[in-house]
């Protein structure tokens, strides 16, 4: 067994577009779920809006990449409003059902052969990163050290991703310490009390849904920047993985979702390298390599259950603050 390679691979996942994309998605969900108490089960839908909004803007409308990214974020604003208007006045679990249903409807629309010319159907969309790579200011060459080595083409989406993530973290941090953020947390703790103070609860919730949704969509853009947009990614499991990340790091914190994303992906890569290696080495004679690959997903589910029951505030959270909305 090659421990060096296993650790190398796991460590390299600390800085990858996947981790950054999930961190952005988790940050956005943190605003929804952690700060405002909104049960958004449509994270996959928001990410798909970002990813496909970006890819379709380039491929179908021929926009430059930065304009495509802005269009994708605006699409997320519209998606948030469509979801929010009917449900934000209703009890929390209605939002959960509507968002998960809307995300699924969106995925089916992306998957159907009826719109294949625009969406690429099951093949997804690819071949749109030319303009993005052409804008790459990084000179050719190898950068980094140890497990973190990238060429200029790999580094460019990572740089953009980190800039977006830093901006989003800054935005969330600034908002959460503002009066606006305090009202939002007040809504999470006791909606009626805040309403009694004369605040427009619906407007606050809608603003939170839009801001969080835009951040999640930014995650979707980063996920697709350098590669492709595939409908198989934006399934409900994606939403549940992001929930696991948010709860792991601390839903009501600013840095928790980012920390959660890093831990989640390092563990995922570690297990995805370790388990098949253990099978190869004959340590787990009752498993096939395929079954060994399944173990990490089973562990995500078990981990999510244990987290919610025993550590609902997450690693960085304060046990006193995080009371789940009833």
């Amino acid at each position, binding site marked *: 067994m090659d421990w060096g390679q296993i650790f190398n691979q796991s460590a390299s996942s600390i800085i990858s577009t996947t981790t950054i994309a999930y961190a952005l998605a988790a940050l956005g969900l943190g605003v929804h779920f952690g700060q405002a108490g909104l*049960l958004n089960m449509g994270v996959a839908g928001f990410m798909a809006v970002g990813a496909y909004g970006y890819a379709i803007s380039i491929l179908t409308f021929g926009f430059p990449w930065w304009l495509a990214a802005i269009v994708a974020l605006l699409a997320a604003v519209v998606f948030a409003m469509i979801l929010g208007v009917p449900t934000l006045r209703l009890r929390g679990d209605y939002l959960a*059902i*509507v968002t998960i249903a809307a995300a*699924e409807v969106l995925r*089916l629309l992306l998957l159907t052969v009826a719109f294949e010319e625009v969406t690429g159907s099951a093949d997804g969309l690819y071949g749109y990163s030319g303009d993005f790579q052409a804008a790459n200011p990084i000179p050719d060459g190898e950068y980094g050290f140890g497990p973190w080595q990238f060429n200029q083409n790999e580094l460019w989406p990572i740089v953009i991703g980190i800039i977006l993530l830093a901006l989003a973290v800054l935005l969330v941090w600034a908002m959460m310490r503002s009066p606006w953020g305090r009202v939002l947390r007040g809504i999470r703790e006791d909606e009626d009390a805040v309403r009694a103070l004369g605040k427009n609860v619906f407007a606050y919730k809608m603003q939170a849904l839009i801001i969080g949704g835009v951040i999640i969509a930014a995650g979707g853009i980063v996920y697709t920047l350098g590669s492709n947009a595939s409908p198989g990614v934006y399934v409900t499991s994606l939403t549940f993985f992001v929930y696991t990340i948010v709860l792991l790091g601390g839903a009501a914190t600013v840095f928790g979702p980012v920390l959660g994303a890093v831990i989640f992906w390092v563990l995922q890569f570690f297990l995805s390298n370790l388990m098949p290696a253990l099978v190869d080495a004959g340590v787990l004679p009752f498993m096939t390599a395929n079954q060994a690959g399944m173990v990490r997903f089973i562990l995500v*589910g078990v981990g999510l259950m244990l987290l919610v029951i025993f550590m609902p505030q997450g690693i960085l959270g304060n046990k006193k603050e995080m009371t*789940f909305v009833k």
Partner: protein
Amino acid sequence: MRPTTRSGVSAVWRIATMLLLALGLATLLGGGPAVAAEGDPFKIAGNVQNEGEAIEGVSITVDGPGGPQTVETGPRGQWQVSVPESAEYTVVLDVDTLPEGITLDDPEDDTPETKEVTPNVPFAPKAVNFFIGEGDRESTAFASQLVQRLVQGINFGLMLGLASVGLSLVFGTTGISNFAHGEMVTFGAVIALWLGGTAFIGASLWIALPLAVLLSGLLGLAMDAVIWRPLRHRSVGVVQLMIVSIGLSLAIRYIFQYFIGGGTEQLPGSTPQKIDIIGPIRMTKVDIVSMVIAIIVIVAFALWLTYSRLGKATRAISDNPGLASASGIDVDFVVRVVWILASALAGLAGVLYAYYRPGIKWDMGTQVLLLMFAAVTLGGLGTAFGALIGALIIGIIVETSSLFIPADLRFASALAILIIILLVRPQGILGRRERIG
């Protein structure tokens, strides 16, 4: 999604089999039979099939930069050409070379034999889809298609109802939106496969299927004893419970995949033969048996819920847990019974669904979970009879909507209607206003 090739039922989509020309298929299965310019970087490929039957010897012409090339489909119906540029190519299928009685058929395309395609990734064959159907398609009148679809919808709705009733009762008595309910559906099917599948234990279906339902009930008992009851006593909030059920759903789902893999397995005894019932209605024997079982179980369950002491207690707890408890109802016991029943009904629905799809897959329950939620919400959260009505409506919408919209959007139509219903009447059909607070 159920495969669209499910034993030809109706409409355009019944026979319209999609031709998937995945690169893997064409290359793995031995490449195209006639490759004009082997070295050219871009590839266009396809697979000509009708209802899963490969059609050999169909002539296909690809024209564009580099000149026209004509190939014939090979023994597995596959074809592939290499072209020099990433530009627009016209792919024409020669209709005269199709077997007797088979025509090209695409309702959204006036010239179904011609496709325009631009290969854009070197060496990754660009797939071209043709829709092929039997030429006698037009002979089925719209009205009889509608009737046939309605019956299928009722069949699907009854099955969905079996599964949704439990989901609704669990929600009513415990407040849990149980995302693991889909896995309880899959569990019944997987256990039936394990007991009755010829590759496994291979017991007679008369033993395997009832035993699968029984074991499903035990799963409910186990889940209540190990997870839900302790959490109830810790008075964990409903949102936390919901997320616990999501974790449980993920864990169980991947445990299924661990054991049965990612493919589709078949239960013994499913036959594609259809029998004429009345007028345009044609069903398989399994469909009929499944409908009869679903109706009997649902009626028995409704009688139990309405007239038995335990059933009344269940409804009392759904109405007002505190008051029910104060009146001397053993809430813990009733909730345990509800979990067992919900799980057994879900398991039965899973077995029926395995025949309906047809096939058993690790995520089959997850695929209908949202339809169950839609049914429950539509009927009114927490009301058992509402869930039944909701399920029938959802089942009929899913099946009939494929007459009007592409078949792969059937589930989307049901979910879209769920969202619209929430706009108009958020408490559902049988729900009460106060529940939505």
